[in-house]
Structures are given as structure tokens and as C-alpha cells.
């Protein structure tokens, strides 16, 4: 397994997670954290990962599935890594800090979850087939 990264992985990932652009500092921190945590991916995982980073719908579906079924997946850990990097940058602080609960937002989250969860379940079925040779996802 290798600590390979997809070209422009950090920028693509930040766009997928938080729809934001990042600078050199965040990219360096992301790559540094990947190395420190040794978040290498198998060949199959790399294929899935590259596919995810190309398309937002595919990213959402596969990530939903991983969140449901493969929470210890290194793919998920890479995503969490980027999230931690973004969380510790002042320019993104307000995405992580909230003062008041909103029922309206809660309602819309509920609606969104109604689409995300089935998408995750469907993607999960394909991932199971894809990794049927026993290799991890």
C-alpha cells in the first residue's frame, strides 16, 4: 500500500466536503497529517477514492455508504483529516462554531438525510460487490 495521493487531492477534497477553496497552508497541513497518520490506501481504495473526488454525487453516495458501513475506513480517515485541518483555520472557523439551535435548519437536515441515507445504502451494495474479493474498503 502506498501513501499515494490523487493530483490536487487536498483542493478537491475541501471542495467536496465544505465547498470551499484552500491555500498552500491547508494543503501542506493535510499532506503532513496524512503522513503522520500513515493513511495509505490499497489499490482498490485508490480507485474508489479517485472516482469520489471527480464527482460530487458519487462522492456523496460513496461517503454515505462508508459512513454507514466502514467507519474505520482509511478513506473516511482522509476525509476527517481534511476536516480537522479546515477546523483549525481561522478562515473556516465560522463553519464550526454555532451559537443557537435552529428548528428550520434541523427540518431541512432531516429532509436531506432522507435522500442521503438511501443513497448510502445503495452505494453500499455496490461497494460490497466491488470489494467482494475480501480486500478492505
Amino acid at each position, binding site marked *: 500500500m502506498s501513501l499515494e495521493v490523487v493530483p490536487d487531492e487536498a483542493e478537491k477534497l475541501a471542495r*467536496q*466536503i*465544505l465547498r470551499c477553496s484552500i491555500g498552500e497552508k491547508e494543503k501542506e*497541513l493535510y499532506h*503532513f*497529517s496524512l503522513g*503522520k*497518520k500513515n493513511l495509505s490506501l490499497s489499490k482498490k481504495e485508490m480507485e474508489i477514492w479517485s472516482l469520489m473526488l471527480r464527482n460530487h454525487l458519487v462522492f*456523496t453516495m460513496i*461517503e*454515505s455508504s462508508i*459512513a*454507514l458501513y466502514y*467507519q*474505520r475506513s482509511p478513506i*473516511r*480517515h482522509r*476525509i*476527517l*483529516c481534511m*476536516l*480537522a*485541518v479546515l*477546523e*483549525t*483555520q*481561522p478562515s473556516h*472557523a*465560522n*463553519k*464550526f*462554531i*454555532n*451559537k*443557537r*439551535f*435552529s*428548528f428550520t*435548519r*434541523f427540518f431541512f*437536515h432531516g429532509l*436531506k*438525510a432522507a435522500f*442521503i441515507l438511501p443513497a*448510502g445504502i445503495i452505494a453500499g451494495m455496490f461497494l460490497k460487490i466491488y470489494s467482494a474479493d475480501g480486500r478492505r474498503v
Partner: protein
Amino acid sequence: MEDGFDFIVIGSGIAGAHAAQTLAEQGVQVAMLDVGKTDTHYRNISPRNDFVSLRRNDEEQHHYLLGEDAESLSWGPTATGPQLTPARKFSIADVQKWMPLESDSFAPLESLAYGGLGNAWGAGSYVYSRNELQQIGLNVSEMETAYQIIADRIGISGGEGDIRSYATGNIRGLQPAIKVEPLIEAIEKRYENQKKYFNDHGFFIGRPPLAALTSPKEDREPLEYREMEFYDDHEKAVYRPWITVDKLKKLSNFIYKANFFVTRFEEQNEGVMVFGINTKDGTPGVFKAKKLLLAGGVLSTARIVLRSFNKLNHQLPLLCNAYTYIPSLAVRHWKTAVPERRTALTQMVLFYDPDKTNSNASLAAMYTYRSLLFIRLLKEVPLPVGFALSFMKNLQPLIILSGIHHPEQYGPDKKIWLKPDASQPTGDKLHAVYKLSDNEKIKNQDREKQIMKAVRKLGCMPLKKVDPGMGSSLHYAGTLPFSEDPKPLHLRQDGLLHFTKRIFVADGSGFRYLPAKGISLSLMANAHRVALHSLKSGNN
């Protein structure tokens, strides 16, 4: 060999610091032997500002929030060690090397740090009741006197009102309780409105007793509500044992010896030889004193005693509070806003004492969540990360965590023993097994159900129960139980190890019962008490 000391104290943590202070105040020559790992990088690296301002403005925050080695990123099952912030990780540095432990049922936290586990302490400072002290085997009036002395030394705030008898007993001179945020005030109001119901069912709720100042004391300043208590000690508002040891170092009759890992002792006619290893270069060393106080923590003391008496493979009993935590959403209080400034410490404590005897209550310490990174929560949420963030961020103002401790008795599957292991620097490794009986599990689960009912009545919705595993409570005791009858590997009530004349144990090793309340204040009080006895006992 270094000689000429009246007393050697092992360890600079909660117990060691206060045993040493009591001895030094009496004018005797005291040497403290300690490994004393310190943090030379993160110490006060964060600016003296509140958490929200730092998050919004400090371009260098990733150094101390994420960590220079990305320490904040941990993927394993929820456990206590990984929950430490980068600034507090030094508390557990090198423990696996010098104090290895093997167990599939017990994962304790131990420390070789300057100030011990007190560096990561949440500051809860509870007295044990008369009933609890008697069950433990401690002298009630000595402990009550000792509690006051320690409270005067470290400064304690809160713990009054309905929870007085559970929290602070007869301690005088308490500082006003910490200010709490509007959400906690709203929950308090709900408790007040239904107090009869809660009290009738054995629930008593109030602001916790904390070793955190709300008024100035000596060179320590009051809490600034920066929410950075798990990262820095700028104002020294929260008491840490290193504060005491720093002061002792200025005394001419106190010597602090760092980088020395004690392995065993040997009692002789005129004194005690203490053997150990220099942790920097691996060379052996010896110290000699008239008397020895073991105060390095229960597991560390157990290793030293077993080695010294050549009792490898001999099993010792062990006590450790069972601990779970329950994240909840304060749904009935959804209108309250989160203030910019608040404390990260416990803001409310709930005692569940169904028989109202104050002898075996369970305790839930409640605190809100913000100053640890969101990622620590999100990795447990089975949702895509971006959506989970948005979802949890909206819920963040409502999140309350309840950490529940249960009282603990001895059992057949609660023990430790030292096994030979030539691959280790000390030639041995500690093994442990810690399993609750079925009855204990059922009892704890029942209590947790009742506590969750109370949490619901307070307007909060419990989400799930998280079990970080045995050992995560950080409360350990009972390996060398108090005994009136002389027995090997037992302690006299004054802390003297039976069948010795000069070896005292000043940590929680003697406690025969472990109440659910935080052990720290009782450890400090016991250490003071044992130190006083060691001064009187035999020849100095």
C-alpha cells in the same frame, strides 16, 4: 548513592505533592524522586485569549489544537488517552516504556509527568462521606481535618446547596461557584421547579466543587472563562500539583530529583535504600533516607512493592470506578444561546443516591462541548462528514455530556500481578484483569437508566451510551488494602506497610472501597494524613 534525607517521597502528582508539602513544612529534609516528564513545547503556546476568539483569529492555532504531530487525530475506539489535547499528551509520555501493562479488559491511564495525571485533571474536588470513609478504612475525623487543610491549600469553589453533604461536607471557606452558561441555568431552573420529585427519587443536583478559583489566591488568578482549561494554565486558576512542587523547590529542605524511575526499595535497620534507573542514560542509581513515602499512583506503587518483596506473579486486588458517558441534547432549552466565553470544566453535577445514605451514590458530571475539536464527535457519527458537520453544528448549542461514575467494591476478577519479562527495562510487566460481575453490570445499568430518566426530566434527550472501557475513569485504588490485623501487602490505617517500620504508602493503594465521587481531594487529604503519621512514627 545520595544520602542524608529524612524522607523520600516518590512521585510529584496529586498525592506526592501534598505528602511532600506536609513533610517539608515540618522542617525535615525531603527528597522527591520523580521521572518528571515536562512539556517544553505546548506549555502556554496558545495565546491568553478565549477559545472562540482564538478560533476566529489565530493563524497558528493548528499547532496547539491539531498538534505538531497531528495528535488530535485518533481513530481508535473512544478511550481516555486519545482524548487528551496535544498540550496534555506529555502526561502519558514514555509510560509504555517504563510501566508496561498488558490486559484485554483494563486500559488505565498512568503518568510519569511532572505533576502526574493532575495535569489532565478536570478539577472535581469531592469529600467522601462518613459512611464512605468508614467503608474505605480511613479515620473519619483525621480525614475531615485533612480535607480542610487541603481545601485551604488549593482553593475550592462551589459544591454548596443541595449537594453540600455529597460534595464538600464540612469544608469552610469555599469560594463562590463558577459562573455557568444560560443552558445550565435553564436546567438548574427546571431542577428547582421539580426539586421535590428529584429529591424523593434520590437525585441531588448542583454546581460542582472544583479546584478552580473564582477569586484570587496567592499568585493564582481566578478563572477567565476562556474555555482553554484543557490546553493551558496561563492564570493557574485550576489547581495542578506542579504548582505545589514549584513552590517546594524554593525551600532549602526540599530537593527534587527528576529523570529517576524508582524500581524498588530495601528496608534496613537505619533507613531505606531506594533503587532506580536514570531515565536519560539508563544508569542505575540509589538514594537513602530514614523513611520512604510511596505516592506515585496505585499501579506504580504496586509494581514497586511487588518487586521489593520479590512477589512476582502474586495477585493484588484492584478497584476502579466503572465509567460511561452519555451525550444528550437539551431539546427543551433550544432557545438558549451559547456565550462567547464559558468554562470547559464540569458545570453541573448530579448525585443519584436511591437509599439516601450517602454511602454508595453514583455521580454524573455534566459539561457542554466545544473546546475539543468537532472531529472528535464527528468520527462517531455514522453520516457523511460534510452533512454530519452541518447537522451537529446546528445541534452543538444543545449538546451536554454526562460522565457517569459508579461506586466500586472488590471482586474475584479485579486484580493485577507482575510477571517477569526480560524484554522490559525493569525486567517485568504488569498484567491486569478487570471485569464486573453480572450483578454489578445489572446494577450499574439500572442506575444509568434512572440517571437518563432524570436527564430527560431536566429537559435533555440522551442519545446513546458510550463505554470507553474499564480504566478510563482514572480512579484506581485498593491494591494494598488497609487492615487492622498485620498482613503482608496490606497497610496499617496510618499508611505504614505492615511488617515494615519505615515504608508508608500515601496514595490510594489502601482504599478498600471506591466511591463514585472524584478521588483526587481524598488522595490529597490522605497523603497529608499519612505524611503526618510518618513524622510521628518510630525514629525519624
